[in-house]
């Protein structure tokens, strides 16, 4: 039997090798464009069309290939060009307008246009490699290794890049051996909770039942997380292979991939991939002649965050209301249609292929004592290099945010007047929110925390789905907690009272505080409710909903107190607590920029021809602050809103006063 498996696999590999050798399809030049969802939202499809047109117009012998997403959001649309005599080069931010110039400069005029290049894909002697930049060099890409490097719809590209060697190894060994390999690796669930993967597998395998199921959780409902989508859109076969190995190991013949319904491209790609895997005998009946039967059905989610919770997901798959069930019983005992069911995340299952192919030891060669391998984060917020970042477990927050992420970007006021220079203002790091609405906000003093399941939990955050939002001094921590609680409140399924009602009361208190109407008692009630909702809720949505509140209270209590006692928002973010003023020392008589920008005519000209804002008319729209030319920079924000008495006409010093006392001033 194993001979058949090897023989059949060898044939597929031969085909894959010849397909890869012919990647350029006889053409001289290969151009790739990342056209997954993130690339598309940056205009990748327009770039693709512009490149194809330019190639045709200049009669260049090139093949233009669509690939998945690299996870380098700041550089989308991302294009690579490999041309004889040159190393393959990545180009970032190649818009529709820029594309024809890139093609012409490099492919017609032999000028590699290095001003638009991110660097060469590999080390070489001509063009500096991208790995000199920490954004690339600081990462260790395993799960994301193929993302953006292969045609995600072509199974032979996957096979040529090591694909299906994991399944072949698994088929040649026993089911227990496969589970043992996962056990040795130390892999823990990457869907959030970090539950040891092998234990679930062993439980499902040990359960006595005729029918068993494997479910891939691709619901990915956390705001800001998109790594599961990227993996499915850019490397779908790794997931299919991982699921097939799981099916073999636990003894299931059927798998479901439950994809979030807002992911149409992911559904399309994974469905196409399932079809190709079946066509090549890698899925369906008698896989590779081994006698293994395993089939996969792609199901679109019900569109609720709570449907990502495994028991709610199973209810939803069965056609019921997507609300959580009481655990235990865990799905491994009684899951889909009452049968033992393995539920794993996309990343977990994609990693299974890697571990089977490369071995548990190599997997565990990076990581910490109890968290092995790598973690993928979606870096967003106040960071220079947003996107997907894959790093060994145990990398510190500081390394991710300041080295790979490039630190906190300055606020830039663009030039408006002729000859004027833009003005940059540095911003300081304040907090990092990890784990989405179930996670927590960690302060600067915890930047040396290693990212692994246990260290993050100890600090009050969680690994969660891997959302990582960087916040700077302009972000109010009370408003941040309010934002996340508003999300959970809307996503609560309503089944149990602590989550349905408790979260709503907590949110109302937070809103009162950000409006400047909070009291000391409110703070005490908030703290008490947070504790009760955490203990009393039925499922982990409710149990973790208070985390953003608990961590901001723990690390940024002074901000809550400032809002309550002094009506000050230290970040000058909460609208009710701030006011816009014009600094009379900086305002220029000849300029009228702010007046025209104000939608409510709140800005008037004083008798000395300087400008002032009639506070009662101001709607805090921020337009004047943006309109005031960079070289004057006269508009500023204060908190509390009444920090400065109404500017009396003709007393020049009024508007300039601020600072001292509890007020905050921000320019």
């Amino acid at each position, binding site marked *: 039997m194993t001979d058949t498996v090897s023989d059949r696999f060898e044939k597929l590999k031969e085909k894959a090798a010849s397909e890869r050798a012919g990647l350029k399809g006889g053409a001289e030049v290969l151009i790739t464009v990342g056209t997954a969802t993130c690339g598309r939202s940056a205009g990748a499809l327009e770039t693709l069309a512009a490149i194809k047109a330019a190639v045709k117009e200049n009669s260049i012998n090139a093949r233009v290939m669509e690939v998945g997403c690299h996870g380098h959001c700041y550089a989308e649309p991302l294009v690579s060009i490999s041309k004889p005599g040159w190393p393959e080069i990545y180009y970032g931010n190649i818009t529709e307008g820029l594309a024809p110039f890139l093609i012409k400069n490099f492919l017609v005029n032999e000028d590699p246009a290095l001003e638009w290049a991110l660097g060469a894909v590999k080390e070489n002697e001509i063009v500096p490699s991208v790995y000199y930049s920490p954004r690339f060099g600081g990462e260790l890409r395993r799960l994301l290794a193929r993302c953006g490097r292969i045609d995600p719809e072509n199974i032979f590209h996957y096979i040529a890049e090591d694909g299906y060697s994991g399944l072949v190894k698994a088929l040649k060994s026993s089911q227990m051996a496969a589970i043992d390999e996962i056990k040795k690796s130390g892999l823990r669930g990457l869907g959030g909770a970090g539950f040891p993967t092998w234990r679930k597998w062993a439980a499902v395998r040990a359960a006595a039942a005729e029918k068993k199921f494997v479910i891939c959780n691709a619901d990915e409902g956390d705001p800001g997380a998109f790594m599961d989508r990227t993996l499915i859109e850019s490397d779908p076969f790794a997931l299919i292979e991982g699921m097939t190995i799981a099916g073999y190991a636990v003894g299931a013949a059927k798998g479901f991939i439950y994809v979030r319904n807002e992911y149409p491209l992911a559904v399309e790609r994974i469905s196409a991939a399932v079809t190709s895997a079946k066509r090549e005998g890698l899925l369906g009946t008698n896989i590779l002649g081994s006698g293994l039967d395993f089939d996969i059905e792609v199901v679109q989610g019900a569109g609720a965050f709570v449907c990502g919770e495994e028991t709610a997901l199973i209810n939803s798959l069965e056609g019921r209301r997507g609300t959580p069930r009481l655990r235990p019983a865990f799905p491994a005992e009684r899951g889909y249609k009452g049968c033992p069911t393995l539920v794993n995340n996309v990343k977990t299952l994609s990693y299974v292929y890697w571990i089977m192919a490369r071995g548990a030891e190599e997997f565990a060669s990076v990581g910490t004592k109890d968290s092995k391998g790598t973690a993928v984060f979606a870096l967003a917020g106040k960071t220079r290099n947003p996107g997907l970042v894959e790093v060994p477990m145990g990398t510190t927050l500081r390394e991710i945010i300041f080295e790979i992420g490039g630190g906190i970007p300055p606020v830039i006021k663009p030039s408006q007047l002729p000859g004027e220079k833009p003005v940059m203002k540095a911003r300081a790091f304040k907090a990092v929110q990890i784990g989405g609405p179930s996670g927590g906000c960690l302060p600067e003093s915890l930047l040396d925390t290693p990212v692994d399941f246990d260290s993050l939990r100890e600090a009050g955050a969680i690994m969660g789905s891997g959302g990582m939002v960087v916040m700077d001094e302009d972000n109010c921590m009370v408003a941040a907690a309010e934002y996340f609680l508003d999300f959970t*409140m809307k996503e609560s399924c309503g089944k149990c009272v602590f989550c349905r009602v408790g979260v709503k009361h907590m949110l109302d208190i937070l809103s009162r505080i950000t409006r400047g109407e909070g009291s000391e008692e409110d703070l005490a009630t908030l703290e008490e409710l947070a504790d009760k909702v955490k203990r*009393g809720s*039925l499922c982990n949505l409710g149990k973790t909903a208070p985390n953003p509140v608990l961590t901001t209270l723990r690390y940024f209590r002074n901000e809550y107190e400032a809002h309550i006692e002094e009506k000050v928002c230290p970040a000058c973010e909460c609208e009710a607590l701030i006011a816009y003023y014009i600094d009379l020392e900086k305002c220029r008589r000849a300029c009228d920029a702010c007046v025209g920008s104000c939608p409510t005519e709140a800005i008037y000209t004083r008798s000395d021809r300087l400008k002032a804002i009639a506070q009662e008319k101001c709607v805090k729209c921020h337009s004047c602050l943006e309109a005031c030319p960079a070289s004057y920079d006269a508009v500023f924000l204060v908190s509390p809103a009444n920090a400065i008495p109404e500017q009396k006409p003709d007393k020049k010093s009024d508007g300039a006063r601020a600072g001292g006392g509890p007020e905050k001033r921000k320019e």
Partner: protein
Amino acid sequence: MTEDVTIYIDGREIKAKAGQSLLRAALDNGVYIPNLCDLRERETPEASCRLCFVELEGVPEPVTSCSTGVEEGMVARTDSWRVRELVAAGFELLMTTHPVDCAACPGNKRCALQEIAKKMKFKLKSGRLPEILRDAPLDLSHPRIGYDSDRCVMCGRCVYVCNEEAGARAIDFIHRGLKMTVGVFGGGPLAESSCISCMRCVEVCPVKAFYEKTKETDV
């Protein structure tokens, strides 16, 4: 023949039936534990009202007794401050969403909320949290059953009997989060549903959000 196991609740020795839930064992032996969603006819507990918490020896956090099976030698407390605090908070939260106008309510004196408040010495109205009432229209379309969804406490008992027991499939939970309520699928009135007038919902509703119309209430 089910065997008996010996358990201890609040220091009292109790003989319970193996396989029974701790909640039912306590209630059957005269130990009161507040509850709304447990239904004897139902095998798997809903565990959604979150009022039946007890503390178990050796378990760090309070657990819901309706979803805990009795075990030989189990030691439980219903009266520890941790349990009381948690139950009190759950009840307080629930009561912010329930109109407290008992005199006008068809469930007055037959209401599980009044019973819980009395036995646990809880106040019916929160002193510190504002009310979040829904203000949905009263459904008087059905000839025998009245339904006031504002009073519903989401225990799910009616949904269970209507769907699983009577098989009528007239009512279900609709909407999510704070807007969640029991209603006719699609949102129409009860009279236009597949109701078979078995009156089971009226029987099981702990707060008489579903009630049998009488001369007085039939307005």
